[in-house]
């Protein structure tokens, strides 16, 4: 398992006075081999920060990253290098993630070189193999990024992530820069690779349709915190957090029969962060239709369950023997 435990990260900003609200605040999640775990949420909610901590590109202020039960922070030198190889990342923007002056073959071979694996001819064969694995030919190896389509660039990045033979891959919005017809090609490729190699994926996405179709579990992130987690089918059919429901309702479905009634007055833009909101309130409070006094005074904590929610007044009923959060 790749486990993130209670991760916290605060960025210092120039403009803020006083202690800044953490970008990531107590996020815990686990990815099992062969499984796709999705982290969903809107832009700026902290998904990419979690991703960067999970691959070790960013040090958490507190919390731990455990790989097969071993704490990454306690490891040094060779051991750390070896362990790090096992978690790789594919970034969102395929164009920006590749060096325009480097051939894409070079880009895929680079991690092998950096980790001093094999000699030149082995690396070349290995690169060829990786290209084949992602559905590209050896002809593409000598090309530069601008000579490839968006989908081909994303394949190159997947090949690069695979080069160190990881056990987990973090996919940060892997298809959101792609057209829908190409999106399906890349998702099929990722599924085939997962089936073949038994990889665990941490899929980070704002696209709830994609998540529903490819992930087995999902956590919903809102302003640095997880608000709900569970099996995808459960969460999608019975969302418990008001924010999850709002997200699901907002997805435009490609079926005009499901079109909501057109509004009879201009839908106003809510103010997300009213002044005076308390740090220990529920962060969805200002937008939540169910908000009550308790929500402003106490931060809702998750109850531990297969499908859990951090909300004082969740949308689905608790089991009768469940006392709920302390009031």
């Amino acid at each position, binding site marked *: 398992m790749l486990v993130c435990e209670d991760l916290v990260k605060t960025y210092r900003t120039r403009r803020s006075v006083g202690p800044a609200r953490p970008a990531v605040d107590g996020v815990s999640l686990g990815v099992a081999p062969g499984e796709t775990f999705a982290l969903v949420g809107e832009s700026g909610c902290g998904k990419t920060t979690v991703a960067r901590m999970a691959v070790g590109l960013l040090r958490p202020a507190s919390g731990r990253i455990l790989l097969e039960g071993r704490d990454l922070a306690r490891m040094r030198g060779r051991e750390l290098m070896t362990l790090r190889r096992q978690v790789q990342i594919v970034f969102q923007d395929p164009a920006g993630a590749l060096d325009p002056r480097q051939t894409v073959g070079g880009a895929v071979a680079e991690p092998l070189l950096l980790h001093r694996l094999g000699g030149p001819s082995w690396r070349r064969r290995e690169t060829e193999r990786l290209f084949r694995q992602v559905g590209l030919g050896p002809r593409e190896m000598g090309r530069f990024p601008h000579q490839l389509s968006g989908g081909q660039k994303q394949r190159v990045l997947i090949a690069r992530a695979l080069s160190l033979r990881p056990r987990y891959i973090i996919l940060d919005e892997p298809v959101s820069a792609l057209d829908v017809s190409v999106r*399906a090609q890349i998702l*099929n490729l990722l599924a085939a690779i997962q089936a073949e190699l038994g990889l665990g994926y941490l899929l980070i996405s704002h696209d709830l349709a994609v998540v529903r179709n490819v992930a087995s579990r999902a956590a919903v992130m809102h302003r640095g915190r997880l608000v709900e987690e569970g099996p995808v089918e459960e969460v999608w059919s019975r969302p418990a957090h008001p924010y999850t429901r709002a997200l699901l309702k907002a997805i435009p479905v490609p079926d005009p029969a499901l079109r909501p009634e057109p*509004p009879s007055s201009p839908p106003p*833009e809510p103010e997300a962060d009213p002044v005076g909101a308390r740090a220990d309130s529920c962060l969805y409070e200002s937008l939540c239709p169910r908000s009550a006094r308790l929500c402003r005074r106490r931060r809702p904590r998750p109850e531990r369950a297969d499908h859990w929610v951090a909300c004082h007044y969740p949308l689905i009923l608790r089991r009768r023997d469940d006392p709920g959060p302390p009031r």
Partner: protein
Amino acid sequence: MVEDVLRVIDLRAEFRSARGPVKAVDGVSFSLQPGRTLALVGESGSGKSATALAIPRLLPDPPGRVTGGQVLLRGRDLLELDPDEMPRVRGREIAMVFQEPASALNPVMTVGDQVAESVRTHRRPGGPVRAAVIEALARAGVPAPEKRLRQYPHELSGGLKQRVLIAIALACGPSVLIADEPTTALDVTVQARILDLLAYLGRRLGLALLLITHDLGVVARTAERVAVMYAGRVVETAPVGRFFRSPLHPYSRGLLEAARMTRDDTGSFRVIDGAVPDLADLPSGCRFHPRCAVARLRAACAGPPPPAREAGPGHTVECWYPGEAAVGRAWAGCARAPAGPRPAAAEVNSRSAGL
């Protein structure tokens, strides 16, 4: 029958490039009616934005150039107008909203001043500007508009910026609004509200709305009619209900399957093979044929390009074999096949054998 405010007829526009002319708009026709929304949908590079810019003659020239067709605004051809008259048309009749709200606003000018600029240039003289500015912002659903006048764009969320742009666009009372991917840069919850706002304003103000998007979910949520664009041409136009029930063009079907994330019997998502063609080097015949599964069984597809044909009320499609499923039903569509070029049986057999 509602009268057309804007009719685009056989519009053509190209960009000069090192590889020769890029035919971004290659014979596009559609019309807009007051209070109705037409969605122009297609993948990136299909020519949607070029179409949007060509209508109000905003294509950057060079490298862009309108090379033919008509843009009739209440019967008057905008492409024939003196260039000096265009600012007036753009001010009073056609307004635009673009994808990136951040870059469309002036970062060093207050919100109030930017809306006021639009109010002043396009308003009949007289009347207090400040009140008109506040009214324009309020109409776009900007909360506490008086407080926004002195704010700068960077102080606003993405959704609010887009609302300010909508306020600016509508301050001049246009009859046509062209919105190019107005919600693509926004989060889903914000997107839903902006789409609702556009739908509301469109009906309330009787706007003829051209909504450009790559997202069929957005189309289903907002539009009355849809036009699918592929490689510079509109390949299918239909009322949304008909379109989502029974799209006829193989590309439309592929797009819809991709949007719905349909799987085939092996459990893989259905894909459209290949990629969008290079507009400087289009394939011969039907421009979709190198990617079209039907074309593998039909030699006609590589012959002369299919013309637009009527396929039902308000439904036109540019395809020799509309509605045909690709594999296993090679002959089923024959009754509907065109009288024009038709594949010889031997050819079809050899092709299907190769599948």
